[in-house]
């Protein structure tokens, strides 16, 4: 039986990818960011997942305004790395897990989540930066990511994005779906994006350290309450792009305690300002 044993939360700032790809990781500015992931890199080596269910958002890369799925699940065998304007990031292509992904799609749709099933989708920094942060640099041709990834894209570009509550409930549904898959697989679920940032207008550059940390406390210790935070609070307190944080609630809803099981253990927590325009947050929860 497949099971979700851990969740990883992290920002997915494009500049982090650029810093990695351009060899800037030892500059003091970036050193402070990457140091926060040293623990996670070791932890994921010691707790190697068989599959990662990776929740992220597409940033006008695979999806233009022609088609905007609220929730899109990738059921393909592989995904190319997108060219976001500077050529594709020099990282390995992403291998999928069609069997588990299709199984989750079927189960979650039958639990009344109206997913869009996708079989062709270039993946952008939202998905590849978290992989780079946790697995380090990989040669795009000679190396491979250590395990298959199921991309799950959430619309946070055009309002209305799904509510925190909807995301949290979806996480619960994903947990049930994974538990009904016959093969014995250790699945990690990652929630990415955020934390506070605003990329637009005279209010660009907004960061809210206090709110971010209070929200993270709530995510870890009282996810039900965290799921009740309305959209407008994210916008007002954490900037217009801070809304990406709702994606972390999908991963959180997939942990055992949301289904009445044991509380997860906080293995690691990290917060840093800034990476480019953004506050970087990172946490690891494990069910022991």
């Amino acid at each position, binding site marked *: 039986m497949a099971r979700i044993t851990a969740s990883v939360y992290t920002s997915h700032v*494009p*500049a982090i990818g*650029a810093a990695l790809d351009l060899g800037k990781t030892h500059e003091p*500015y970036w050193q402070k960011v990457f140091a926060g992931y040293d623990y996670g890199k070791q932890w994921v080596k010691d707790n190697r997942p068989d599959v990662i269910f990776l929740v992220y958002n597409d*940033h*006008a*890369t695979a999806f*233009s*305004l*022609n088609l905007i799925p609220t929730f899109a699940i990738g059921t393909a065998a592989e995904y190319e790395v997108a*060219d*976001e*304007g*500077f050529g594709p990031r020099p990282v390995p292509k992403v291998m999928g897990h069609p069997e588990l992904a299709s199984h989750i799609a079927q189960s979650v749709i039958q639990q009344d989540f109206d997913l869009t099933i996708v079989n062709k989708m270039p993946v952008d920094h939202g998905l590849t930066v978290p992989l780079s942060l946790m697995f380090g640099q990989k040669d795009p041709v000679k190396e491979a990511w250590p395990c298959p990834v199921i991309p799950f894209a959430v619309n946070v*570009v*055009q*309002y*209305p994005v799904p509510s925190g509550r909807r995301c949290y409930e979806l996480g619960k549904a994903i947990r049930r779906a994974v538990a009904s898959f016959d093969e014995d697989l250790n699945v990690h679920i990652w929630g990415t994006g955020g934390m*506070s940032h*605003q*990329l*637009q*207008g*005279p*209010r*660009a*550059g*907004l*960061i*809210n*350290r206090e*709110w971010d940390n209070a929200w993270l406390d709530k995510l870890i210790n009282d996810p039900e309450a965290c799921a009740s935070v309305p*959209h*407008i609070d994210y*916008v*007002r*307190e954490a900037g*217009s*792009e801070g809304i990406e944080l709702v994606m972390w609630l999908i991963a959180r809803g997939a942990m055992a305690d949301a289904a009445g099981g044991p509380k997860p253990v906080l293995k690691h927590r990290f917060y840093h*300002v*800034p990476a*480019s*325009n953004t*506050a970087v947050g990172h946490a690891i929860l494990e069910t022991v």
Partner: protein
Amino acid sequence: MALEKPYKDVPGTIIFDAEQSRKGYWLNQFCMSLMKPENRARFKAEERAYLDEWPMTEEQKQAVLARDLNWCMRTGGNIYFLAKIGSTDGKSFQQMAGSMTGMTEEEYRDMMINGGRSAEGNRYIGEDGDAQPHHQPQGSAGKTQGA
């Protein structure tokens, strides 16, 4: 339309909702076209001619030519789409975001290193934070250009 839009009272912020999306549809689809290297080359070679291939409004075209991202946003642009113009120009996301504040690149970068813009006074229109309309433009870049 009687849908609640509580995000209308946040200063210095335009939420990209269905209404903005309708308004900015062709502007954003033009931006999307810049994902292809051959289109970037054509756009760079003759900007106006390339823009004229799209059913955008004249104002949208002017806003793009002026590289005024705030103006682009008012006409329905979304920042993730507009970022393709920045990539075409070789600009980083930090440069693009900073350009909307009136600050120089250094001023904006320093603000971020020092912990970013505070939410204090910037939650509701009518407070007195630095993102409020009456404090624009914020930096010396905007002041010299007149923004």
